[in-house]
């Protein structure tokens, strides 16, 4: 009997023969693998497992103006090949974020996409103003899957006009060189119409998909598992929905860069999203399973592209539409 074990090494991320440069609007990333908002906090914890500067970028947990306690627990439920979460955007608020989190990322060489969330168009606009000129911020991701407190809690991402209002306001208050990505929810009848509204309002790119609205009941208490009743479904279970959404939007708006996410757990998954039309890919829930998932996915993606004869990532973006 012999046991061969090894420390899980951050896989080597170089593959000199493939140009992995990824473009999200005017921003150029050295490679197309990012973290997904809310699945990597603000990078510090993951730095114990790999160098955060090795990623295309770190997407931060969505930040709001004020500090937020988030929701009561339980905040999660595991589901078949996925999970539900209802964190309630716990966070320190924009001031503490600008004082502690963004500078840490900057010092550690991470490129940062700052995700923002708000309860009103004005809150989003104010966040954009505060972030203007923040060092190390490469792009803004606008999480519009938030209830609009001014309109019966209707989620911005579910209404083209509300989505456009938020994106337009953020775009106006953000430096022109900083791309604004609108993060779309799959829980809509027609994602292309929401995508179009966001782009018309000035979005430089689209992030998709956010979680699907789901729910689980606890058979012991016979009540919802989550204190928040409903929650967001993520993980490998939802990848087919992500691929479909990216495919549809890329088909309709081929010029608009897409940051793809939803169930990416391997390089093969990442390439699937790229072929469907994503210019870059975020790894979310898979991090909970494997803290080094983002660098592993990057290494695997490089191999998968190489094995298929791609010499640049750009050639693979949306390739399945052109085959």
């Amino acid at each position, binding site marked *: 009997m012999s046991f061969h*074990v090894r*420390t899980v090494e951050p896989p080597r991320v170089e593959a000199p023969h493939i140009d992995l440069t990824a473009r999200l609007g005017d921003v150029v990333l050295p490679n197309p693998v990012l973290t997904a908002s809310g699945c990597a906090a603000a990078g510090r914890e993951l730095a*114990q*497992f790999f160098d955060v500067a090795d990623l295309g970028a770190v997407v931060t947990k969505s930040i709001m103006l004020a500090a937020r*306690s988030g929701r009561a*627990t339980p905040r999660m439920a595991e589901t078949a090949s996925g*999970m539900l979460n209802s964190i309630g955007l716990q966070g320190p*608020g924009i001031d503490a974020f600008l004082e502690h989190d963004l500078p840490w990322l900057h010092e550690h060489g991470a490129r940062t996409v700052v995700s923002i969330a708000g309860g009103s168009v004005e809150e989003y606009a104010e966040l954009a103003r505060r972030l203007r000129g923040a060092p190390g911020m490469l792009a803004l991701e606008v999480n519009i899957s938030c209830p609009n407190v001014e309109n019966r809690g209707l989620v911005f991402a579910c209404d083209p006009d509300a989505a456009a209002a938020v994106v337009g306001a953020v775009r106006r208050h953000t430096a022109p060189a900083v791309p604004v990505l609108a993060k779309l929810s799959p829980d809509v009848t027609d994602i292309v119409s929401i995508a179009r509204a966001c782009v018309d309002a000035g979005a430089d790119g689209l992030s998709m998909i956010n979680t699907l609205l789901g729910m689980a009941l606890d058979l012991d208490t016979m009540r919802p598992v989550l204190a928040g009743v409903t929650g967001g479904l993520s993980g490998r279970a939802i990848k087919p929905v992500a691929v479909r959404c990216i495919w549809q939007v890329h088909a309709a708006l081929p010029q608009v860069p897409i940051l793809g996410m939803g169930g990416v757990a391997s390089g093969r998954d990442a390439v699937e999203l790229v072929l469907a039309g994503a210019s870059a890919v975020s790894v979310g829930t898979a991090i909970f*399973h494997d803290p080094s998932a983002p660098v592993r996915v990057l290494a695997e993606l490089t191999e998968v592209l190489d094995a298929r004869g791609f010499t640049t990532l750009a050639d693979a973006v949306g390739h399945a539409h052109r085959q």
Partner: protein
Amino acid sequence: MSDGPLQVAGQVLSTKRVGAYHHLTLVAPGIAERTRPGHFVALATGGPDSGLTLRRAFSIYKVDTRGVYGGTVEVVLAVHGAGTAWLAVQHPHTPVDVVGPLGRPFSLPKDTQRGVSATLVGGGYGSAPLFALAEALRSRGCRVDFVLGAASADRLFGVLDAKRMASTVAVTTDDGTAGTRGRVTDVLPEVMAAAHSDVVYACGPMAMLQAVTAVAARRGVVAQCAVEESMACGIGVCMTCVLPVVGDDGQTRMVRSCVDGPVFPGDRVRWDDVGTVPAGTVGAPVAGGH
């Protein structure tokens, strides 16, 4: 990076039934060296095509830096749901990805405080992390007394280990199948009095931790409690494992038990409010606000 957790492609070395539990030894080199009492590991379960996504957290029972096959980590697990059921039946050589050591360990009395009397309270498999703790305390010259409780005799873990290490061992079971019938807190005051306890360490169900904290407080002693909150990642990135804890500034915050715990001073945890966001918590919703 050097003293944080590692991620190791480990393997099952052995699994063994111990009463109602399973004693699992994993080959996972590198983790032993960094482990201190109270640390935990987060294990990936279910194998390659599993529908299970999230890690499972287990207190570290023992480590060995010099196992024949490389450093090992031992945990004691109760079968609860799918992940623990899987772990319990794996054969030697099954790959298990291990992340650890995680969390904040128990605080030991300062080296200068030789002669401190420590009472260790374990509920069910909650005793697992206390034996390494007992050894560390003993090596600093502390007196160690154990109180071990469980629902029934088969759910006690490590009574013999405890007897080997401790000045006294009190055992309780809910059904009286071993030791005194009743709860650990029924015998704790007596044990603490006899031992002139300076500090209490506890690990077990939340209700037990709350009760132990109260008993200890009555003697002016703080209980260091290792809590067990539902965890998705174990490494601090998901925010699922929070509970309301009072900070040095007197303010309540929703604090991650995986990185700011699992060990908390019992008097800082708002036990009655676990599972809620108590009014006044930093960032709590206010009437008319979000």
